[in-house]
């Protein structure tokens, strides 16, 4: 491994790590303002996981039914089980409207209504007039909305001449003694050569960490890289216990079946053919919040009403909608069913099971996407020069449970907000700070650790064990004993990482090395998840404790903060005060 001194350095105004929707929307804003922007992505940008988002992006355009950003805000606060920060939620719901128009102007091929406006469909947890009739707020490009948005953003970045470092893996952030972020050490995957990117500002936009679970809708690349990098420079992760299990993953396989299937009129049935959501959510039925639907499915199966030979899934029916609707509105789902299940969803129901899907938690930020951490002057002090947006961040708009269609919205709004704030930061801080070799040492040491030769456990084995452990000990339903055992097992597994060795020490396109670095990240975010979950002894949103089934606003209307040093937990209050409107106080959450 090269010494710090001999590594090549590149210099930029803004370094963006991750080329999904958040990173690319930030990059677009900065490149259009003529900043020097570097986007580092471990895959070619259009491979980023935004591409897999299906159903759509929420905005109160009122194209299909009456709507209003304030109703959207109410639904999001309620959906969050009152853990979302209401200033950030107000920002997101207001900004949703111009953001979607901006995307449309950029070229996103949204589906259309007869009058030429953007098509909007119903999604879970949406209401008109603060809890009234179902709303239709999700703007869609068939069921390939993420693909349409990601490609459009990449295309517009090509036009803006953004500088891309494709297939470069970010190893670690580099900080100086005052805690200012100076850039990152990255690895060119093709050549195997490390590179230092010095930047006045750094945005983490690395997405989620679904690979920490054995069965997940997430791609292979979703390994929590940015979250783990933030942890390693001493920052906290917020609300990591809130991990969303999407109600409808393909049973046993995990591919996502979009909520749009239910938004277009589909519904779930158990082995008795009963539309069971009537019992759990008499008003919203199958369009109740995701946490509610996932728990209902697991309960049906636990009580013996699962379908199939092993009674281990339920069925999602859309066959009553007619082939026209199914094939036109849900072409991607039709493909997935044909390829992976050998069925046409217009003719046969789909076997589904709740599947690990989305991190509500992440790197804490304010509504300008600036990373915040507890420090001398309070729990939310801005970390200079460091930003986070998208699934790796926790701003927090999703609180304890995210609504469908709010994820694409989150990445776009706060990606853009990061871009805007970076512009003013760079104006006020126009010069690079000096980077010394000592600042590079921790990052270089991490790379060097995987250069060690000899015998040892294999990355693949430890990773498989980790994913099984998280599934067994931190799933849809949780309790003290199971999680405490999980933490002990995970601590033991973390110790073993020291003894894991790579067999392959080659330079050119060494994917084994990348997977080893990703394993480090998965272990750290897995621990953050389990520790945060173990300590929260209440049920709220996606965090469902069998031993503490009630929400406890007295004790727990606060955000969890996990710190890597000594696996320490800390807490900070929820921001219940919006920017311009009245606060939505916590209420019992029924659908």
């Amino acid at each position, binding site marked *: 491994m090269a010494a710090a001194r001999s590594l090549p350095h590149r210099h930029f105004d803004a370094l963006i790590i991750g080329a999904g929707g958040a990173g690319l929307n930030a990059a677009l804003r900065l490149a259009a303002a003529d900043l020097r922007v570097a986007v580092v992505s471990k895959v*070619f940008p259009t491979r980023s996981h935004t591409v897999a988002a299906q159903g759509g992006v929420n905005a109160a355009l009122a194209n299909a039914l009456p709507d209003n950003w304030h109703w959207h805000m109410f639904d999001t606060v309620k959906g969050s089980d009152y853990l979302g920060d209401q200033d950030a939620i107000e920002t997101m719901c207001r900004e949703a409207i111009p953001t*979607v128009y901006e995307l449309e102007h950029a070229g996103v091929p949204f*589906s259309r209504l007869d009058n030429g406006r953007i098509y909007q469909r119903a999604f879970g947890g949406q209401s008109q007039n603060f809890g009234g009739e179902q709303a239709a707020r999700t703007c869609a490009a068939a069921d390939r909305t993420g693909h349409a948005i990601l490609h459009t953003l990449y295309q517009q970045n090509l036009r803006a001449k953004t500088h891309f470092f494709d297939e470069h893996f970010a190893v670690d952030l580099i900080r100086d003694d005052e805690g200012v972020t100076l850039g990152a050490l990255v690895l060119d995957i093709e050549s195997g050569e490390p590179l230092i990117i010095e930047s006045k500002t750094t945005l983490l936009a690395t997405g989620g960490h679904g690979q920490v679970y054995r069965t997940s809708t997430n791609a292979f690349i979703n390994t929590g890289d940015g979250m783990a990098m933030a942890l390693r420079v001493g920052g906290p992760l917020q609300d990591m216990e809130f991990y969303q299990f999407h109600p409808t993953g393909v049973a046993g396989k995990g591919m996502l079946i979009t909520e749009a299937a239910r938004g277009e009129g589909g519904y779930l049935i158990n082995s008795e053919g009963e539309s069971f959501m009537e019992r759990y959510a008499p008003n919203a039925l199958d369009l109740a919040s995701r946490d509610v639907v996932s728990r209902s499915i697991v309960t049906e199966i636990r009580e013996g009403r699962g379908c199939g030979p092993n009674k281990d899934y339920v069925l999602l029916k859309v066959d009553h909608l007619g082939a026209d609707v199914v094939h036109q509105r849900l072409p991607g789902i039709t493909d997935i069913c044909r390829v992976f299940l050998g069925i046409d969803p217009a003719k046969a129901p789909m076997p589904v099971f709740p599947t690990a899907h989305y991190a509500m938690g992440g790197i804490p930020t304010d509504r300008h996407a600036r990373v915040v951490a507890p420090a001398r002057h309070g729990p939310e002090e801005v970390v200079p020069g460091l930003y986070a947006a998208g699934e790796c961040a926790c701003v927090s708009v999703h609180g304890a449970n995210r609504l469908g269609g709010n994820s694409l919205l989150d990445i776009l709004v706060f990606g853009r907000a990061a871009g805007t704030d970076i512009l003013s930061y760079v104006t006020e801080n126009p010069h690079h700070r000096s980077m010394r070799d000592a600042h590079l040492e921790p990052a270089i040491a991490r790379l060097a650790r995987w250069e060690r030769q000899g015998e040892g456990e294999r990355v*693949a084995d430890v990773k498989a064990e980790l994913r099984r452990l998280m599934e067994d000990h931190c799933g849809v339903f949780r309790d003290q004993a199971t999680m405490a055992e999980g933490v002990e097992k995970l601590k033991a597994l973390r110790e073993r990482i020291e003894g894991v060795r790579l067999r392959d*020490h080659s330079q050119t396109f060494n994917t084994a090395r990348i997977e080893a670095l990703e394993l480090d990240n998965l272990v750290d975010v897995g621990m953050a998840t389990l520790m945060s979950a173990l300590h929260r002894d209440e049920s709220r949103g996606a965090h469902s404790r069998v031993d503490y089934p009630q929400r406890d606003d007295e004790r727990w209307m606060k955000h969890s903060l996990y710190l890597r040093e000594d696996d320490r937990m800390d807490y900070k209050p929820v921001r219940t005060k919006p920017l311009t409107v009245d606060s939505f106080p916590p209420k019992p959450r029924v659908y």
Partner: protein
Amino acid sequence: MTAIRLSVYRYQPDRDAESSPAASDAKPSMQTFEVEAQPGMMLREALLAIKEQDETFAFRHSCGEGVCGSDGVNANGTNCLACITPIAELKQPIQVRPLPGRPVIRDLVVDMTQFYEQYRAVEPYLIRKDPLPEQEIRQSPEDRDKLDGLYECILCGCCSTACPSFWWNPEKFHGPAALLQSWRFLADSRDQATEERLDALEGPYKLFRCHSIMNCVEVCPKGLNPTRAIGKIKELMLEQSV
């Protein structure tokens, strides 16, 4: 256990003789593996099983459901996406090679630079000249339907690397993937750069090297039809020139 037999292309330019004593030179070769069959197994899962046995084996992959476009490979002579190609449909031993005609970086990983350059060359983004409205640019459902079969491209490269014209002139001929995107914007009622786009396609190579061999249509894992899109561009050129 039922075993699946695969013969996989191996090439490692800096192969470390110590870690892989079996092949210490850097010549490409085919290596045979056996992996355990699983119900409904896709080719990507078989490649992952190989990676379990030998971590020096490299290939690109990510989403596992045919939307990210990372894992284009050539299986038994046909380009495909490994994650949506059922093992059951492939004759064994399955011959797995990198996408043809591109320089190999390592094993199944090819250098896609020229493919991406051709994509960039068609200016694959919406160009508006009118001032933007406050709300959406209106588009009728019929006009929007014209983008179906075009915007879904995932840039996997299966089509262009199956195209003999692209093999011969990858630096001059845009290739089916890029031309499909060219038509995607020409066909968009919101785009206002038709003339410039068509002018830029003039000449004997960029567009006109397509000889309608239709390999692209055969292999497209998303069922798209670049040959038809190329035909539409030619029709529009003719229309505009009279």
